Every structure is written in structure tokens, then in C-alpha cells.
């Protein structure tokens, strides 16, 4: 019986063959800390009377509320800078971007690495073959103090994406379809091992990040995309780094990309996924394009393509927040940003933005937001009765123009267009 990719990575780390179900203690290659829990992280290290064992393996990212929204946050972020200087720890400050995007850009996640992050979407690192997993402040502090963490070797669910995405359908739609099929608890405690075949190998690193990012919404501990395509050009992928053909999976799911249509996740659960057609016409107050899920250059470009020569509907706010400073620079250089601005978008500081309802676009009671983020839980972006619909940047952009949930194809035949015909 062969090994899954998760079993291979952990076996390599432990130095012997380990199988799903075993508890192992492994060396950690990178510990990622976000600003919102940094205070708890420092407190726990102080309680342990410890400092990071390998300072170069720790990164702190100021992204969850950046720039500071109030005095409490400002004090916490000041402490991060001081602590970072004192202990020689890398700090990515206000404006550098969302933690997961920044670590990938900085090369701080590599195939076969164990990356533990104080953010549940640390599964994103699986896009490049890193065993990325989210943990709470205590686990993160222990990982920094000891250089190690304990893990249960996970069972694996195999998800195979076949074929090529039709025009107008994106990796986000594929990711939402995956969560629909797996359900919100379908991969709890497991690895989601993603195989791209028959054309799907063409998916970019960013698109793979979108897939890996959303695996946690099915409960996954880790979301590993088997390396192929541009990952092989961008990274040193070792020869052993592939699952065995006779590896054992708890479940196997197949998704035919060529037959996929635009998807939307309807409140208040991420796995409540429907075709856009089913909710078309729902009035929208705010549209948010950004986050670790969909704030990359290709996402902004996809939105710009839809918005080119059009205007955001009266009464709708379109917030665009690039996932990183690098994305912002590139989008400025290639004209994407100007297209977005001309359409009526407003641009925010690279970071998490309003994703978790703390600043920069909090929702009032009864408001409706189409967001390219990853969670539509009740009250997540503000008022408990505000509604969040999760969609691709293309659907988000089209909805901003229409003023209701729509696809770009709907815009071509909208009354507004016909009036000018």
C-alpha cells in the first residue's frame, strides 16, 4: 500500500514511514504569526520563558487590521515592531499585504516544508506543495519556542480536477464546487490532495492558491496540490514528492472543469453553493474584490476586463484591495488599476480589508455584499443580518455594474446597455 502526499511529506520529516492516524512530532520550517494574535503569541512565549528557537523561521505579518483602526490595534502593532526588532524577527508591516500572499511571494513556503500559521487559511501554502496548516496562538507559540509541532498524520481525500476552465469560469468557481461536493465537514482532520489533469495542469500558482485556500472550508487540515505546470518552473520539487499510485484515500472526488459554470456561495455557510443563475437579481450594496482567496494580479485583471468601459451601478460601493504591495505595483504598472478606478472602484491598503468585519467596509444591518473572500458566516463582516455572497472576481465585478448578482454575460443584455444601443 503506497503513501499519499501528506504521508510522504510527514514521513520525510520524521525520518521513517508514517501512516494516517499516527501522532508525530515534526520540525517546523516556517511559523507565521498575524497581527491580530501577536499579543497572545508574545504572552504565551513569555509564560514559557522562551524566545523563538529559530528566529529566521518566524514571520509576523501586520495585515488583519492594517493600517491600525483604533488605539488598541495601534498599541498591539507597536508591540509587534518592538518585539520583532528585539528578537530579530521578520515583520511585514502595514501595506505589505495578506500573510499568505506575502509568504508565497517571499519564498517562505517551499515544497515539502511544514508551515504553521496563526490563520486558518494557511492551507493556501499547499498550492506550492508546502504542508501548510492553521493553528491557534498556543500551538504557534509552542512551534516558535520548540521549533517543532505535534500533528496527527491525516487521512486524505483525493480531489481530481480534469480539463480546462471555460471562458468566464475561474478557479474560484472550481474551489466553491469542491467545497459543495465535500461539504463543510467532509474533510475534517484530513488532507485534501488535489490532482490537476488533462489540461488542468495549466492552472497558475495563484489559481492553485485559491483552490488550496478553500480546502479549509471543507474542514481540511491541509490542502496539497500535487506539483505540475508552472510550479515545476518556479520551485525545486524533489523526485520523491508525489503520491504513490496505490495510496489509500478515504474518498475520491472528480470535477470536470470544462463543464463548470459560475458559482456563488449563499449565506450563511460556505458549502451552500449554487449556480449564479439561481440567485441572479439579488440586490447588492457592496462588492469586495480582494483577500488571500482572490486578491492577486490575475483576479484584479479579471475584474478589470469585466469593468472596462463600464460604471459601477449608482448606490453600489466597489472596494478593491490588492493582496500585496507587489500586486498593487504590478496592477498600477499595467493599467489594471486605472481601469478599476475609471469604473468607480475605490482602492484599499493591501491586507485583509473587511473580510472579518473589523474595518474598511463593515456591513450595516440588512446590507448585501458580494465578496471574493472565503467566509460568509453570519455577522462576519458586520451586522448579524447582513448577507455575504462569495463569488469569483468576474461575478463580483459584474454584480457591481448590474447592482444585483450577475455574471459578465448578463451585462451584455442588460437594459442599461440596450438603452444605449
Amino acid at each position, binding site marked *: 500500500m503506497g503513501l499519499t502526499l501528506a504521508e510522504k511529506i510527514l514521513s520525510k520529516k520524521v525520518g521513517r514511514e508514517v501512516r494516517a492516524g499516527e501522532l508525530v512530532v515534526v520540525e517546523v520550517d516556517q511559523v507565521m504569526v498575524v497581527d491580530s494574535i501577536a499579543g497572545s503569541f508574545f504572552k504565551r512565549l513569555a509564560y514559557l520563558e522562551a524566545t523563538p528557537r529559530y528566529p529566521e523561521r518566524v514571520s509576523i505579518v501586520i495585515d488583519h487590521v492594517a493600517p491600525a483602526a483604533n488605539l488598541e490595534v495601534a498599541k498591539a502593532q507597536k508591540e509587534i515592531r518592538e518585539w520583532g526588532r528585539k528578537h530579530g524577527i521578520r515583520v511585514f508591516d502595514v501595506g505589505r499585504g495578506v500573510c499568505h500572499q506575502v509568504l508565497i511571494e517571499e519564498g517562505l513556503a517551499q515544497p515539502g516544508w511544514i508551515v504553521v500559521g496563526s490563520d486558518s487559511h494557511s492551507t493556501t501554502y499547499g498550492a506550492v506543495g508546502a504542508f501548510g496548516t492553521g*493553528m491557534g496562538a498556543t500551538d504557534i507559540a509552542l512551534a516558535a*519556542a520548540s521549533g517543532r509541532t505535534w500533528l496527527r498524520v491525516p487521512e486524505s481525500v483525493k480531489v481530481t480536477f480534469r480539463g480546462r476552465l471555460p471562458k468566464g469560469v475561474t478557479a474560484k468557481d472550481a474551489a466553491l464546487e469542491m467545497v459543495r461536493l465535500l461539504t463543510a465537514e467532509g474533510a475534517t482532520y484530513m488532507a485534501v490532495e488535489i490532482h490537476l489533469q488533462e489540461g488542468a495542469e495549466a492552472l497558475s500558482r495563484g489559481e492553485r492558491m485559491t483552490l488550496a485556500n478553500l480546502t479549509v472550508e471543507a474542514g481540511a487540515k491541509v490542502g496539497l496540490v500535487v506539483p505540475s505546470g508552472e510550479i515545476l518552473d518556479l520551485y525545486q520539487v524533489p523526485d520523491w514528492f508525489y503520491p504513490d499510485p496505490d495510496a489509500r484515500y478515504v474518498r475520491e472526488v472528480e470535477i470536470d472543469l470544462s463543464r463548470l459554470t459560475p458559482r456563488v456561495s449563499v449565506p450563511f455557510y460556505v458549502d451552500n453553493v449554487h449556480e449564479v443563475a439561481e440567485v441572479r437579481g439579488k440586490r447588492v450594496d457592496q462588492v469586495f474584490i480582494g483577500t488571500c482567496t482572490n486578491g492577486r494580479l490575475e483576479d484584479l485583471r479579471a475584474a478589470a476586463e469585466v469593468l472596462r468601459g463600464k460604471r459601477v451601478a449608482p448606490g453600489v460601493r466597489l472596494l478593491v484591495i490588492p493582496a500585496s504591495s507587489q500586486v498593487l505595483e504590478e496592477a498600477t504598472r499595467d493599467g489594471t488599476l486605472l481601469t478599476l478606478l475609471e469604473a468607480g472602484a475605490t482602492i484599499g491598503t493591501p491586507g485583509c480589508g473587511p473580510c472579518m*468585519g473589523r474595518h474598511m467596509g463593515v456591513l450595516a444591518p440588512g446590507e448585501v455584499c458580494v465578496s471574493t473572500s472565503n467566509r460568509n*458566516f453570519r455577522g462576519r463582516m458586520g451586522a448579524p443580518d447582513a448577507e455575504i455572497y462569495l463569488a469569483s472576481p468576474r461575478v463580483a465585478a459584474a454584480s457591481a455594474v448590474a447592482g444585483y448578482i450577475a455574471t459578465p454575460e448578463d451585462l451584455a443584455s442588460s437594459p442599461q446597455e440596450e438603452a444605449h444601443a
Partner: protein
Amino acid sequence: MPRVWKFGDHINTDDILPGKYAPFMVGEDRFHTFAFAHLRPEFAQEVKPGDILVFGRNAGLGSSREYAPEALKRLGIRAVIAKSYARIFFRNLVNLGIVPFESEEVVDALEDGDRVELDLETGVLVRGGERFALRPPPPFLLEALREGSLLDYYKKHGRFPGE
């Protein structure tokens, strides 16, 4: 006698402590007073130390924010019973020294407002004349919990249980 607070399936960490009430936003001294602020605003006012939280399936899904279970710990919660747990939440409970019990049957049997006695070491739960047996936590977790929490265990031994 401790009271049962019962919630449904898929209660996420935004439900347990909305992001806008993180200690990072409102301060270390009062974030716990916003536990379940959206879902059950009276909870933080009325809960008593030793009370038991009961959840359905996939308890604590979502954000890895440890301050969600930490708010519960501050309010005196020592044990949670759920049909099943989301991974990060389960780890965070253990890390904080809150005992995570798992049982479909017991969750179905308990009602909100029930008065119960629960032995955290043995998992024996008593409601009036009824006795339920919850499976005690696995050895690895029990070792950590006996020291208080995983953090306390590591502080004392300089290693993880079983290492």
C-alpha cells in the same frame, strides 16, 4: 449545579467571538464579555463557572482564533461536549485546558438549561437520576490536560506528551 448551554450544528468561531470583539480590537480585559454576542447576547452575562457547553456537528469551524475558546475559558467553561469538532478548535480547547468530549448520543439527550454534574477525568455525566458515560480524552490529551494545558505540559517537561 452546572448548567448546560446547548447550541446547534456548525457553530463557527465568528459565532463564538465575532472578529470585531477580538482582544486585539477591544482590549485584553473585556473581550470575553462578547462571547456569543450575535447568537445569544445574554450568554456572557448569565454563564457561571463550571457550566457545560454543548454543540452539534462540526463545532468551532472557521477561523483559528484561539481567543474564541479563550473567552469561554475566562467565563469558567471547563468542558465542551459536541457531536464532532472542527480540527483547529479541538486543538485550541486542549491547548487551553478545556476538555473536548465527543458523543452523538449525549448531545441528543441533553437540553438547554439542564442541570448536570460532569467528572472531567472519567467522563461520567449525571443528570438527575440518569448517568451517561462520555469517552475520556485520548492519553496524549489527558497527559496535557492533567498539567492544566498543553502549554503547561511543555513548560514543565520541555517536550510534547509522548515525545
